[in-house]
């Protein structure tokens, strides 16, 4: 309780609240711009938080995160283009509703559903994270190593189109993390006498290169589309705030179900808002009495998809706070920002820095309130943001990436790494590798290695990895997730072959 109050005292200062407000606005703005993802927005916020107190910095990043999930809704509803990958399902019903002459109502439903989704997920987080952390402190290096193996396999098999490429990307990430000095004894590895490599690849530079540079470059793939500025469809926007709130609250089952789906999927490493968005929508459609209306502007569709993706924000923090394992790229960045401030993230986080963790919970709740207030009062202004053309965004954000990379360590060599990683990232993206497993590999690599070596230092018996029950559970789960992914892959291929046979015959 004391920690709770200390955390609250740190959040409810004028400076922190003002920064958080700016963060919410920035998150909504950024995600509303097509081609500018929530992840990118948080990557760019990171260098700005270095000068702040740890909790203040995290609070700002959480507001960008929460705001970002809402911002994706704006372009999804008005343009039919998901502003972020996590609002794909939102376009299914919000866009038709906006087209039917109710753009304000579509946005309003989405905003309220996002708000309730975040609140529900925060409540779950408050109750789930502490017991999980207490359990996690009892885990030894064996369990930790197995847990990371599980996290990486599930990320590799869930994200992207190909299991094999997902696995390869995760392993390449692990390989990248081994460059530089080794985490236990500080021996130099794989630097090939190049000074730039002696410190290894700083993972924030990898994050910026992989997620921002390669994404930005991918935005200009289609030359014709970039050069034509497509105007935004505008109609009368009437927000009907309270009426819509009642309308959303009249669907408690859908709201709670979608939020719980979001929390569970968010808590699973690798599966973020983009999956929760689709799964929640799908479940709502199956459960609905008028499933034929889905896709034509059905309120339940918007509620489910937006509550689902917003709830992953809280869900994703559960493994981060409880176990020190980031479940998604965004959580990895949050973890990085804590580490930059010298706070070690792991199960002891909640025991040693309880005020910080409770502060994060409070910040989540405050951020969702701010997001709501900002959206309700100034949605009309934000609509203009979707008009910002790509030709302006691409160079500006690239410059911000360069500044951010430089500001991390004040090293020009990091910039050379950035361009190298950016090109490599774009190549991998173009070849259909998913990049999230790679980044998580880079972050989890040193943790996995340290725990593996520590385990064998304690006892050189390898069989402990399979005889300790919890470790065995994680390893079995890892095998199952691979098997399951291969099975569904084969199933998809069979159906694809059958359908192509049918079309030729």
């Amino acid at each position, binding site marked *: 309780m004391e920690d709770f109050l200390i955390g609250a005292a740190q959040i409810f200062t004028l400076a922190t609240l003002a920064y958080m407000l700016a963060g919410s606005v920035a998150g909504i703005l950024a995600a509303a711009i097509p081609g500018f993802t929530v992840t990118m927005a948080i990557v760019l916020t990171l260098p700005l938080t270095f000068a702040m107190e740890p909790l203040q910095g995290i609070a700002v990043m959480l507001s960008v995160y929460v705001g970002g999930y809402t911002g994706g809704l704006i372009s999804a509803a008005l343009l039919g283009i998901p502003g972020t990958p996590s609002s794909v399902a939102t376009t299914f019903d919000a866009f038709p509703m906006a087209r039917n002459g109710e753009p304000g109502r579509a946005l309003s439903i989405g905003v309220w559903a996002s708000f309730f989704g975040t609140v529900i997920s925060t409540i779950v987080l408050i109750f789930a994270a502490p017991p999980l952390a207490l359990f996690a402190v009892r885990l030894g290096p064996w369990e930790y190593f197995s847990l990371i193996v599980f996290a990486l396999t599930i990320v590799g098999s869930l994200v992207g189109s190909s299991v094999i490429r997902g696995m390869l990307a995760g392993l390449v990430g692990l390989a990248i993390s081994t460059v530089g000095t080794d985490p236990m004894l500080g021996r130099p590895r*794989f630097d090939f006498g190049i000074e730039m490599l002696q410190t290894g690849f700083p993972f924030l530079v990898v994050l910026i290169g992989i997620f921002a540079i390669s994404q930005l470059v991918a935005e*200009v793939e289609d030359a014709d589309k970039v050069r034509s500025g497509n105007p935004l469809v505008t109609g009368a926007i009437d927000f009907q705030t309270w009426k819509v709130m009642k309308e959303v609250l009249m669907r408690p089952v859908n709201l709670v179900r979608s939020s719980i789906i979001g929390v569970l999927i968010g808590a699973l490493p690798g599966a973020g808002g983009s999956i929760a968005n689709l799964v929640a929508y799908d479940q709502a459609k199956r459960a609905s009495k008028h499933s034929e209306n889905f896709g034509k502007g059905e309120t339940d569709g918007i509620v489910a998809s937006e509550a689902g993706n917003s709830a992953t924000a809280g869900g994703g923090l559960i493994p981060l706070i409880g176990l020190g394992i980031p479940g998604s790229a965004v959580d990895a960045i949050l973890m990085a920002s804590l580490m930059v401030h010298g706070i070690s993230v792991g199960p002891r986080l909640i025991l040693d820095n309880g005020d910080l963790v409770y502060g994060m919970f409070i910040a989540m709740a405050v951020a969702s309130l701010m997001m709501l207030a900002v959206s309700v009062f100034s949605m009309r202004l934000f609509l203009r943001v979707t008009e910002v053309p790509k030709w*302006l965004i691409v160079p500006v954000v690239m410059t911000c990436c*360069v500044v951010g990379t430089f500001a991390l360590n004040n090293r020009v060599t990091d*910039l050379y790494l950035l361009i190298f990683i950016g090109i490599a990232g774009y190549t991998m993206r173009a*070849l259909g590798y998913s990049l999230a497993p790679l980044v998580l590999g880079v972050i989890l690599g040193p943790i996995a290695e340290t725990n593996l070596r520590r385990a064998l230092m304690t006892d050189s018996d390898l069989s402990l990895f399979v005889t300790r029950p919890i470790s065995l559970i994680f390893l079995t789960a890892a095998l199952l997730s691979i098997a399951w992914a291969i099975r569904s892959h084969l199933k998809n291929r069979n159906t694809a072959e059958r359908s192509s046979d049918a079309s030729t015959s």
Partner: protein
Amino acid sequence: MRGAGPDEAKEAGEIARLLSYVVILLASFGLFFAATGIPTSRFETLGAGAFPQIVFAAIAFVAVIAIIDALRKIPGQAYGRFAAETGGWVRRRYLVFIILGALALYILAIPIIGFSIASFVFVFAVQVILMPRRTKSVVIALIIALIFSLGLNWLFAEVFTVFLPRGVF
């Protein structure tokens, strides 16, 4: 996908992926043996080279599976079309290469001419390359370039006390 049927483009993509698996496989072999040269410590069962060896062995294993899988999928005649398909792909995405080139030049120029000037030139030039050229958009581009070169430099120096490279001048 213009200029080629979707099947041909898909095959070319598979071949490009196959090449990437081969590159990854070769690299993992090389690095696996490089890792055997890392000295071990007598205080540990596993030395500094052991974890990288495990990782590279796993990469090699997965890459071999990927190569076998890809070879099964690609029809024989696809290899002949690969060069033409790749050329077409590169030409369709010429802007990507221009932007990456510009970014590389920009980063190389920062230590020499300083952040402000390099950023101004980069932001303005890339905007002009990408935009539909009209007087109004050129003026906007100029203002944006000024804000994100001199403005950012000022913001970081005054507010965050991070001094961006000033160059040799």
